[in-house]
């Protein structure tokens, strides 16, 4: 073996090790979270998923997460209901109608928006938006609607630019073929290009929803924090992320409460894992 081969092999090994870091991190993260959740899962049992009573510091403590799971899902669902159509409309405008100036203005606004730290967004919502919502009838400054607005603003740049990318990646002559048949710009963009981009758009949807469900700071600041199942837009919620963020700093390591918070993390991770899996399956099926 000559010197060049040795060098090549060394390089390859080093690169392989670095490339492997990502995989190792993900796997160890999963192992770590599962391991820390086991005490809560075995000692509290199915009550975690069936009880709405989250009183981890009472005596005896209660660890029902149903309200928080439902809170996370409702909050995500509602925000997605706002952000996905809005994101699509923005991307559709950018793709189909915007001239170069409009395009530049909108794109840089979106970039700017995506750079705003979520804690600033939370503060803004708390100071300026909450009072308006309260005037409309909310009884708590933090509530489902305010949190949804926050999540919508935060994830909008993400949704819009991902969807715009999927639309733009469609072959230009597909759109022109539709136009050349006499189709309007709207028909060409909506019926042909959007359909051709459907797997990319679905992927954008999943990524956006994933981002919404994992967002923490805004919901911590403006969701209200009460672990109840919300019955109206004005009720407060306590999503899983907010519970973890606000309580993790105060539990004693190794306690049942500590383990229960990891269970909450495990639930979040599982939801986003399932979403990713769905998107991979659907897109994989489409590609063939």
């Amino acid at each position: 073996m000559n010197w060049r081969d040795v060098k090549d092999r060394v390089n390859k090994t080093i690169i392989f090790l670095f490339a492997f870091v990502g995989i190792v991190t993900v796997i160890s993260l999963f192992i770590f979270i599962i391991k820390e959740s086991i005490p809560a899962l075995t000692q509290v049992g199915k009550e975690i998923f069936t009880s709405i009573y989250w009183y981890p510091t009472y005596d005896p403590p209660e660890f029902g997460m149903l309200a928080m799971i439902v809170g996370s899902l409702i909050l995500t669902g509602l925000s997605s209901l706002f952000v996905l159509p809005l994101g699509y409309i923005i991307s559709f405008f950018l793709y189909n109608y915007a001239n170069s100036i409009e395009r530049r203005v909108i794109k840089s606004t979106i970039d700017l928006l995506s750079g705003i730290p979520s804690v600033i967004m939370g503060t803004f919502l708390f100071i300026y938006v909450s009072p308006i919502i309260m005037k409309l009838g909310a009884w708590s400054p933090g509530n489902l609607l305010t949190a949804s607005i926050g999540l919508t603003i935060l994830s909008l740049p993400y949704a819009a630019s991902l969807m715009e990318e999927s639309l733009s990646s469609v072959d230009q002559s597909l759109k022109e073929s539709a136009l050349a048949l006499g189709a309007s710009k709207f028909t060409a963009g909506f019926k042909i290009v959007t359909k051709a981009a459907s797997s990319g758009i679905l992927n954008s949807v999943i990524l956006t929803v994933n981002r919404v469900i994992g967002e923490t700071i805004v919901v911590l600041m403006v969701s209200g924090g009460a672990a109840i199942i919300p019955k109206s837009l004005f009720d407060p919620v306590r999503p899983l992320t907010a519970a973890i963020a606000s309580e993790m700093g105060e539990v004693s390591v190794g306690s049942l409460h500590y383990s229960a918070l990891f269970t909450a993390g495990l639930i979040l991770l599982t939801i986003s894992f399932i979403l990713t899996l769905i998107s991979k399956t659907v897109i994989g099926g489409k590609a063939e």
Partner: protein
Amino acid sequence: MFNLTAIREQTILNIRDFDGWYGQKQILKNINMDIYKNKISAIIGPSGCGKTTLLRSINRINDEISDYKTSGEIIFEGKNIYDKDVDLTLLRKKIGMVFQKPVPFPMSIYDNVAFGLKIHGIKDKRKRDEIVKLALKRAALWDEVKDELDKPARELSGGQQQRLCIARALAVDPEILLLDEPTSALDPIATQKIENLIEHLSEEYTIIIVTHNLAQATRISDYMYFMYQGELIEWGPTRIMVRSPKKQLTEDYLNGKIS
């Protein structure tokens, strides 16, 4: 004696003093030419000479490119197609186009052909079925696909896809068919089929084809238009132009000295 009125009656499209710019860059320089009805006209020339831009100006699909500007006239049915009150939907119904790459829509074979019919308001299902069948027959595709009209169009071969695109354009009953290098992405056998088809179609339609395949242009076209660096250098009946070009540039191109 040269009978001007007789010629005018045969032309379907007259391009007059036509200029085209991308931003500041002039792509088409004072183009003047006539297109004859039910003939195959081939626009030839080296890459970047403006031939595709000219073709794309004829159905105004180049309007899609945001900084494209034109001046001069393209007269079709006695009217400049660049007039403000032109109905683009109607114009594009009458002047169809097939692109370089076969681009079937993400739907079934049937729906691909029926797409234009829906746009132009043909709602009667039986009539639509009939037109789809006729268009596929004209595009010499019917026999190959008649039993699988519901199959996704993307499952067809490249050559079949391109004939599907031609059928799709024919379904809305155009008068002129613009073909932008329709065979450059196809293998020789599929190319041969499309060429035969084009010759056949010229009985009913006026065909304008852009190609950088000189042999193809010579084989199938009745008229030839040679462009070089944005200018129309020479045009005329293919047989005459190939045998005795008037301009040195044309001769050089035909002899392969410029490409």
